[in-house]
Every structure is written in C-alpha cells, then in structure tokens.
C-alpha cells in the first residue's frame, strides 16, 4: 500500500481505522504479489469490509477495540489471505489476455514510436546540417580528410539502413514500455516479472530478426545500428515505470548522441573549406604511379600515342551491382578502325572486377588502385564486342557484388595477345574520373559477418 495515489477514492471524512486494522492491512499489502493498482484496490476493499464488520460487531455489544480484534479474527491470517488473493488474480485467462493486450499495444506503440523516431532523426539531420555547415565545418573536414575509412562507413545506402535502425530503436523502446505497462495491468503479474519476460523475449526475437531476417544494404555502422534495436527494446522493457535515468536527462543524452553521429555523417558532404579536395590526383607523377599499380593486373597494350585500345563507355553503380562499359577507341560503324582490327587479334577478352583500395601517391595526392592483398580478380565475365548492343564497337558488363563486403571496385578489360600473353586493354582511371566504382553489401547481418571481404 505504498502508493496512495493508486488507491481508489476513499471518503476523506471517514473516521480513521484502529491501529490493529492498519497493521493488518499493511501485512496484507506486503503479502500481495500483485501490481500496485491491484494492491490498492484490495486495500480499499478490505478497509471497507472492516468498517462494515466493526459496525456490525459493535451493534452486537462489543466496544471499539474488541470489535476490531474480532473483525480481524474473522478475516483470518493476513499473510494467508494475501496468498489466496494473489492466486485468485493470476489466472491463465488473464495471463493470455495480458500477453495479447501487451503485444497489441506494443504494436501501436511501435507505430507511434517509429513516427517519433523518424521525426527525431529528421530533426537531427536538419540540425546537423546547420551545425556541420557552419560551426563545425573546419574540424569535420579535417577529420574526414584524414579518415577515408570513416567516410566510406557513412556513405551510400548503408547509411539509410543505419538511419532507419535509429528510428527503429525509438520505436522498440516505446513499444516495450507500452507492452510491459499493459501486460502488467491485465495479467496482474508483478511488473518485475513482466519486465523480465518482455525484455528477454523481445530481445531474443528482435536479435534473431536483426541478424538473420532483415536484409538491407550493410556496413559496419548499419550492422551496429541494427544490433542496437534489440538492446533499445530490452532497455525500454526493463526501465518501464522505474527509469534509472530521469527522462529529461536521458532525452538529452540521446539527442546529443544522435546529433554527434549525424554531424559526422553530414561532414562528408560539406564542400572543401579551402583548397582542392585532397584525393583529386592528376599530376603526371601520381598518374604514373597509378599505372604501375594497374600493371599488376596485366601489362598495358597501347595503341597509338599511348592510348589504350578501349575507351570510356560509362560506369554505373548501385547497392549491389557495378556496371562498366567500354568502346573500341576508333570504331566507326561500317568502317572499323585499326583499333578494332588490333582487338581482333586478341582472344579470351574479358572484364575483370578487382577490389580497389586508396593509394597514397604522395602526401597530398591519392589514387585508387587494385588491392595488393588480392592477386586475382573477384570475378571475370567474357567481353563480347560483336553483340552489337549499340554497335559492334561496344561491350558492357554487370557484376553482382552485393554479397561481398568490399565497396570499391575497378573494372579492367584484358585479353590474350598474339604472343600468348594476357594484356590490359583499358585504363580505368579515364572511365571513372579517378574514383572507383562503388557498391554496398546487401543482406542480413549474419551474411555480412560471414561474407568475403
């Protein structure tokens, strides 16, 4: 009976009960293993009973104190009565109704929480854009210039997955709190027991869903964000009604955390503060260094004036597919040039998808080159220049790289020349303006964890 506000309204002008009755009610309340509002109802009902009982006994001739003791004796041991009442309230019917009601209201809470989460993330995005574009612009540029890995982590579609996961964290938190509250009220189980059940079941369910079911563009940030969802649910369940951190303080902590992460994510899109971007490299020295790295794929076979046989045909990339097209350098429909004739001397002409890495050509210059950690391409596809998709001087390829964690790629075209050696026939830098083709892993967290790098 420690929460008087949960007690049904009692008449304030009623005479106080004898001390023995108060002590009885205290012991009864202590023995009731039921939610607060139920304990309050029982206390009020038993208080009402004692008033009637004492009045009746007094009308039979006993004075006040003896009437109170007689009323207590008739009602029996408070501990035993509390146990009987607790048992009476905990029916299977109420348990099932509590579970169903809790799930229903948790679903409503999740819907509302998702809207709230999206609103919070959107507001944080706007605030972050303003902050990183003004006050934090120099430091964020400095950080992202020096940490390309962080830029990659915050880029592309996986960032969308992470943003949605953050909104889902809010939804899970709200859903758990609402589910626990309703389940406790209906099932008449103690909040502590209901919290533990909801936290355990919800965490297990959401963890399995996050790791094995939800398929989305992934990187380390999105994986960590998705894994935060079951933790948010468990936190919401365990802190329901008795938050360990006061609500305003927790809101401030969450807001600061979201703003910090989003500030970092926006910084990559901020234009340079001063000078050219540090990864634009077009000096002869950097280009020569890059070509030496390309020669690890195969030595270049040059055509005229150092030009390769094949020229840019366009590169595209999406969440899990990279597309590359190349043209024969001097091909004219109906009048194939000497490059086409030279190409006809090559056999086993193929596209090769190589993992790309950032290459520091000098302290201020960087390029993209085939990853030295891999001595072979990730995949190869025959290049058919006679398919005539546009004209006979064009070939195009699509690589499905959705289940590889690597996110930067370079596509080469190679062929076996008249001397029996394989040569590189294109110069990918021209296709991509110095940058690689980009992809993102798409799948579940489990697939991401077990995927090839």
């Amino acid at each position, binding site marked *: 009976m420690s929460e008087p506000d949960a007690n049904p309204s009692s008449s304030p002008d009623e005479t106080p009960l004898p001390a023995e009755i108060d002590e009885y009610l205290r012991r009864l309340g202590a023995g009731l293993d039921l939610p607060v509002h139920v304990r309050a109802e029982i206390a009020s009902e038993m208080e009402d009973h004692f008033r009637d009982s004492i009045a009746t006994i007094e009308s039979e001739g006993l004075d006040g104190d003896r009437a109170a003791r007689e009323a207590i004796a008739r009602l*029996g041991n408070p501990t035993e*009565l509390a146990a009987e009442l607790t048992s009476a*309230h905990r029916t299977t019917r109420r348990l099932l109704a509590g579970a169903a009601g809790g799930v229903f209201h948790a679903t409503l809470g999740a819907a509302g929480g998702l809207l709230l989460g999206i609103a919070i993330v959107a507001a944080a995005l706007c605030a972050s854009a303003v902050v990183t574009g003004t006050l934090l612009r120099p430091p964020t540029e400095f950080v992202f210039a020096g940490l390309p890995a962080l830029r990659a982590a915050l880029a592309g579609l996986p960032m969308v997955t992470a943003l949605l996961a953050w909104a889902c964290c809010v939804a899970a938190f709200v859903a758990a709190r609402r589910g626990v509250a309703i389940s406790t009220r209906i099932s008449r189980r103690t909040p502590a027991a209901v919290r533990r059940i909801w936290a355990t079941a919800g965490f297990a369910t959401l963890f399995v869903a996050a790791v094995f079911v939800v398929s989305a563009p992934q990187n380390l940030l999105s994986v960590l964000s998705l894994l935060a969802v079951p933790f948010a649910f468990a936190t919401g369940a365990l802190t329901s009604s008795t938050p360990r951190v006061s609500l305003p303080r927790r809101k401030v902590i969450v807001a600061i955390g979201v703003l910090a992460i989003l500030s970092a994510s926006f910084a990559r899109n901020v234009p340079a503060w001063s000078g050219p971007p540090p990864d634009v490299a077009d000096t002869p020295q950097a280009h020569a260094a890059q070509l030496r790295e390309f020669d690890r794929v195969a030595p270049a076979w040059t055509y005229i004036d150092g030009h390769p046989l094949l020229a840019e045909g366009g590169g595209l990339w999406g969440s899990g597919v990279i597309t590359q097209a190349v043209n024969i350098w001097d091909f004219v429909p109906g009048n194939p040039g000497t490059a086409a004739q030279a190409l006809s001397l090559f056999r086993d002409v193929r596209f090769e998808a190589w993992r790309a890495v950032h290459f520091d050509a000098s302290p201020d210059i960087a390029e993209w080159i085939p990853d030295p950690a891999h001595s072979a391409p990730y995949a190869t596809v025959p290049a058919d220049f006679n398919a005539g998709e546009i004209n006979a001087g064009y070939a195009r390829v699509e690589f499905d790289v959705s289940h590889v964690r690597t996110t930067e790629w370079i596509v080469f075209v190679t062929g076996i020349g008249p001397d029996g050696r394989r040569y590189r026939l294109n110069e990918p830098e021209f296709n991509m303006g110095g940058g690689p083709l980009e992809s993102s892993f798409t799948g579940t967290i489990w697939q991401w964890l077990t995927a090839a790098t």
Partner: protein
Amino acid sequence: MSAESLAAVMAAIGSDRLSGYEVMVRLAKPLAAPEPPEPALYPTLHRLEAVGRLRAGWSTDPSGRTRRLYRKP
C-alpha cells in the same frame, strides 16, 4: 472453495450489486455457519471475477463512501 460454495456465492449475489461484506452476510444466514466464511470469501469473489463469472466495479454512495460491488455479467 468447493464448487458448491462457488454456486452459493453466485446464488447469494443473484441479480443484485453487492459488496463483499453484503455477500458474506447473505451467505451466513442460510448456511448458519458457526464461523463466518470471511477468510475464503474475498479470494473466491476475486477468482470468480478473474474468470469472468462476476463483474466488479467501484461505486460511491450518497454519503461519499466508496465501495467495491460485485454483480453477474
């Protein structure tokens, strides 16, 4: 409480809206029990409510006193 006692409680309530104490008074008269059935009465009422055989609600009488009353659905 036995099935007979449950039936007796239901019969005592009849079509009225009664407090636990009023139910006890009605039960005591016909049964003429040497010891009033108070210890088991409230758990029985609460159990009948939990399984849906009784409805319970709070009512305030003209004197301002709040009482929990039971009735059949």
